[in-house]
Structures are given as C-alpha cells and as structure tokens.
C-alpha cells in the first residue's frame, strides 16, 4: 500500500513511477465501472432480504407442509404461526388450523436425538439387528422438522410434518407447549437461558 502511494504521488512524472501511474489509471477506471455495475444489482437484494425478514417476523417463518393437514396439498409452502389458541398454516391457496388443545404430541429433530441418543439409545441401537438402530434425520441438515400429532374434529388421529429453517421448529414447539400443547419430550430451553450461571 505504501509503495502504491509512493508510486501515485511521485514528484518525477517522467520517471518509472509515471509509467506505473499510467498503468494504474485504466485499472482504477475498470474497478469503478465494476462497482457502478455491481452495487445497484446487489442493493435491492439486501433490501429484499431485509423486507423478507420483516415480513417473516410479522407473519411467521416460511415453511413447507410435507403432509398431514386437511385440505392442504402435499409439499405446500406457506407460513406457520401460533395464532391465539391454534397453530396456523397459511399459504396462497388457503389456511389450516390445528387447535392447540387437540395436539397430542410434538416432535422436532432434536427430540429424535434425545430419544435415540445417549446411553439408553446406544444400548437400544445395539440391540436392533440389520442396522435397524441407525437413525438419522429424514431431511436435510440445514432444515428442521416439526411433527405434530393431533386429533381432528371427529377425534381421528392425524399427523402433520412441517419443514422449517434450522432452529425454528424448536421455537414454535416451545411456544405451543407454553400455550398448553402436549409434548412427550419437553422442548429445549432457549440458548440465552442456558448461558446464565
């Protein structure tokens, strides 16, 4: 950097440093042109991200409903919120509610780790033949799965599977359990609480 400055502010314009300066000018022009082209293209993306975050905060995280909701097609995408006394999935094509009181159980990927991990899980896994004990997440590791077992209006058993961004399933589970939903495995405490002494 120092050399660069020396070359640029050389007192001898006809010397070797002058040649360097001449060489640097087109490079600088090119860099400026690139910046002019790139910045307007990137700025709206940042704006969009911010807008997405704002809308997500307002309407709930974007999720994929794999299956299990009445009148909702498989793999429908929409938002998932805890609205009043129901878990609400909203998409462009409609809404579906699961009353919190009807929820029989809730699972996230972390619950599977709790169930199948640990000493008990290891012993269990060892006892299951033909790799039957090998349990991994069904979906990508960048996502988290929320499984909701509930009863419909006729008291029929139903199960819904949602794919969310990592960490969001636990947040929703915590919210639902706080409002009275049943869960055989209690949700993990938030990270901020864990850090407290």
């Amino acid at each position, binding site marked *: 950097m120092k050399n660069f400055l020396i070359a640029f502010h050389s007192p001898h314009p006809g010397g070797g440093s002058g040649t360097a300066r001449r060489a640097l000018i087109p490079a600088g022009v090119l860099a400026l042109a690139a910046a002019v082209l790139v910045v307007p293209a990137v700025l709206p993306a940042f704006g969009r991200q911010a807008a997405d975050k704002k809308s997500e905060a307002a309407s709930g995280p974007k999720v994929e409903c794999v299956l299990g909701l009445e009148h909702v097609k498989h793999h429908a995408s929409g938002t998932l919120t805890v609205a009043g006394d129901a878990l609400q999935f909203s998409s462009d094509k409609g809404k579906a509610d699961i009353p919190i009181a009807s929820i029989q159980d809730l*699972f996230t990927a972390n*619950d599977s780790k709790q169930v199948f991990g640990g000493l008990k899980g290891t012993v269990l896994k060892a006892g299951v033949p033909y790799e*039957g004990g090998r349990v*991994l997440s069904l*979906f990508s590791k960048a996502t988290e799965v929320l499984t909701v077992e509930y009863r419909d209006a*006729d*008291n*029929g058993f139903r199960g819904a599977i949602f794919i969310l961004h990592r960490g969001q399933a636990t947040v929703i589970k915590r919210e639902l359990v706080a409002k009275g939903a049943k869960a055989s495995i209690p949700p993990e405490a938030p990270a901020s609480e864990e850090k407290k002494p």
Partner: protein
Amino acid sequence: MKNVTRLSVAFSLGIAVAACAFMLAPGSLAAQTPPPPSVSTKEPPPKPKPTIKASAILIEPVDPGDVLMPPDFQVAVYEYLVEQVTRTKKFAHVYRSGDKEAANVPDLVTLRTKAEYFKMGSEKKREVTTVAGSTKIRLKLLITNHEGKVLADPDVEGSVHFFGGNLNAAYDFAKNVAEVIRGIFI
C-alpha cells in the same frame, strides 16, 4: 427279388432310425427349436379372488415396537396409508384411529401395522452412487374383523433405491399395502 425287397426295407428302416436319432440328439437343430409357447411359458398362478367384504376400515397408528423409527417417518407412513387405502375405493369409509363414528359400524375391519425393520438411507448417497443409500422398511400388517379375528397378516415392505427422498419409502410401503388390500377385499 426277395433279397432286394428285404434290403430295401432294411435300408429304409435304417434311414428312419438314423433320422430319429438325429432329431432326438441334444445338440441337434430339432432339439434347439423352442417348444410351442403353450408348453414352455408357465403362466403365473392366478391370484386368489378377493373374498372379504367390509364397508369400513379403521387404520391404527404405526406401532414402532422395538425398532427405532423417527416420529416423522411413523406419521408419514400413517398418512400415506390412509391416503392409499382410501384410493383403493374398497371401503365406503376409511376411519382414522379414535374416530367416534367407527364404533357404530358393524362390519368394520381394523388395520394395524407394527414395525419389524427400518434402515435409514441417504438421498445424497443414492444420487451419487445409485447403488448405496437405500431406505428400507418392513412392517407386519394385521387386518382383523370386528370380533378380532385375523383376516390377514402379511409382511409388507417399502423402499427407495435410486432417486427421491427418504419419505418415498413410506409412500412405497403404503402403495404395497393398498395392493394387499385390493387382493383381499371385494
């Protein structure tokens, strides 16, 4: 003259025997020609005709038993089961476990499933190798009538070998169960 006749008879007999031997020889052309299709192609045994009639079926949730199966997979198996059994159109009503109306149906049959084997594969492995990473499940099916008499108890499998998510194994299983039901119920 008699000798000539005897000679000609013996000669023709010899030719006939030689021709027969040629035809019956294992490497001969005649032996290589395929026998008529009606003899060679064994038709598969005819499927037994469905005999049981029921107006409604109740589907119970998957019993994982001792097999470690993720809850999302159990739920997926159940939901696909309900969907595929409904698609068979063998029953006027397909009830979910706990449905209040199911108890009032006199000829209700109940479908139970118990996990016997589960192997979680990897979609990435399947896509890369097309050989490794398959997901497989095997469940024991138990179909009982209203009195609890067992009508059928086959083992049904589901798997995903090449492309597709792990849940496709649950879908495959449900489709196979639907096939079993088509074979049992009128």
